[in-house]
């Protein structure tokens, strides 16, 4: 197998990794906001439910969660699994797992906004949702950016966990080539691709942080 074939197979797998990555962000970034708000809700049962959900998501391996979500429809509802089920299970597991982590970061960010900001907004007549969207959220974004950056970088690497359930992302592809071609090169290439992706993400985050550097509290 030529290096070119190897690389093109790896990039094929990388597309799957990127798809998991992108879908997770698209789903978990907003879902995390809802979870964070529900976690702080005045409706006690809802707040408790969210606490338990977050605790389970953070307290058990993501790999186990993927399997649980993959098999749940069959064991709980007797629904027949099909070839697409694995992919769906991976994406759903990633989204609800990352939403829990994001929610905790959002929560710490929201709680770090001083009471005076809410009081000033209240006296000026802003509604609760106007206050959140216009005043609280933009400040939260700046405060949580470093912590979110860590999670996003972890997420790129975590996409390799989909390997365990048999979704052919980059790591699975690399392993398959390693096994059939008896060479370690694919692992080296894969490592390089993970690292370059994270380098790009780090640069984007740094640029965003720089843009938000125009003020401090």
């Amino acid at each position, binding site marked *: 197998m030529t290096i070119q074939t190897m690389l093109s197979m790896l990039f094929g797998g990388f597309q799957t990794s990127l798809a998991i990555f992108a879908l997770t962000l698209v789903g978990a970034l907003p879902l995390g906001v809802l979870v964070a708000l529900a976690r702080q809700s005045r409706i006690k049962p809802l707040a408790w439910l969210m606490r338990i959900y977050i605790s389970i998501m953070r307290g058990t391996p993501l790999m186990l969660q993927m399997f649980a979500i993959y098999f749940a429809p069959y064991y709980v509802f007797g629904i027949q699994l099909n070839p697409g089920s694995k992919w769906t299970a991976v994406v759903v597991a990633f989204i609800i797992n990352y939403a829990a982590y994001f929610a905790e970061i959002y929560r710490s960010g929201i709680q770090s906004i001083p009471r*005076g*900001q809410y009081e*000033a907004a209240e*006296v000026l*007549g*802003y509604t609760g949702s106007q206050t959140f969207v216009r005043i609280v959220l933009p400040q939260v974004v700046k405060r949580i950016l470093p912590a979110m950056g860590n999670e996003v970088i972890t997420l790129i690497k975590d996409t390799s966990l989909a390997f365990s359930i048999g979704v052919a992302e980059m790591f699975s592809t690399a392993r398959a080539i390693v096994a059939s071609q008896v060479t370690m090169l694919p692992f080296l290439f894969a490592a390089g691709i993970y690292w370059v992706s994270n380098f790009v993400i780090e640069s984007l985050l740094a640029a965003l942080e720089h843009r938000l550097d125009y*003020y*401090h509290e």
Partner: protein
Amino acid sequence: MRANAAQQAGPADAAAKGQGAADGLPVVSLCHVRKSFGEVPVLRDITLEVQRGEVVAIIGASGGGKSTLLRCATLLERMDAGSLSYAGLEVARDEGGRAAYADKATVREARSRFGLVFQGYNLFPHWDVMRNICDAPETVQGRPKEEAEAEARELVRRMGLEGCERKVPCELSGGQQQRVSIARALAMHPDVLYFDEPTSALDPQLTSEVLKVIRGLAEEHMTMVIVTHEMAFARDVADRVVFMDEGRIVEEGTPEQVLVHPTQERTRAFLAHGKD
């Protein structure tokens, strides 16, 4: 008296807006207000009315309940008992020793009638000066952007903040920040403006900038209630001085009466203590 002069010479916007107040009702009226935090009574039967154009200074020792009174008047804190009205708009009334608050719409209407200037400014740090001043008129009152901005520029000028329009709060001195927060409150055209120790976080130089601006508002007959430790300022700007101690109004009257010839022992003790 200033209160009478204000009826003819009050700011145009206030006169246009305060139809409800035109008939001589007090701009704000707090009656028999009580408030406790847990078991600790902080306000014990406070009654305070402020007439249009009047400047009231509230003085008193730390922990006397001055901030709590402003927070009740601005609906940041709920009274346990008593009533609260803004020029005939009844926000809370006393029902068998409990304060019963009006519906949400009334509360929202009441909020549009007052402004509050905080000791710590509480500007929105992610917005520049213009946005800090314009945003509530646009977002809350739905006023057109151009109108809100034109007015904000005028307020920037009146507050002596020219050149700061595009700066964010962290680039301003404390005195400038406090003047932005006064502009932010004025942009909403309140009937009454409350100040909670507006200068106590500032050094003497910056304090005088802010006091100058407040004095200017007093000359334009803006209705104001000012909690302050600046006795000299209270003396020359206020129409009425209220001395509060341990949750009660101990003495009130003209600055001359309260600050120069106090009749109550506690007022004398407070003033003597403050002077050394």
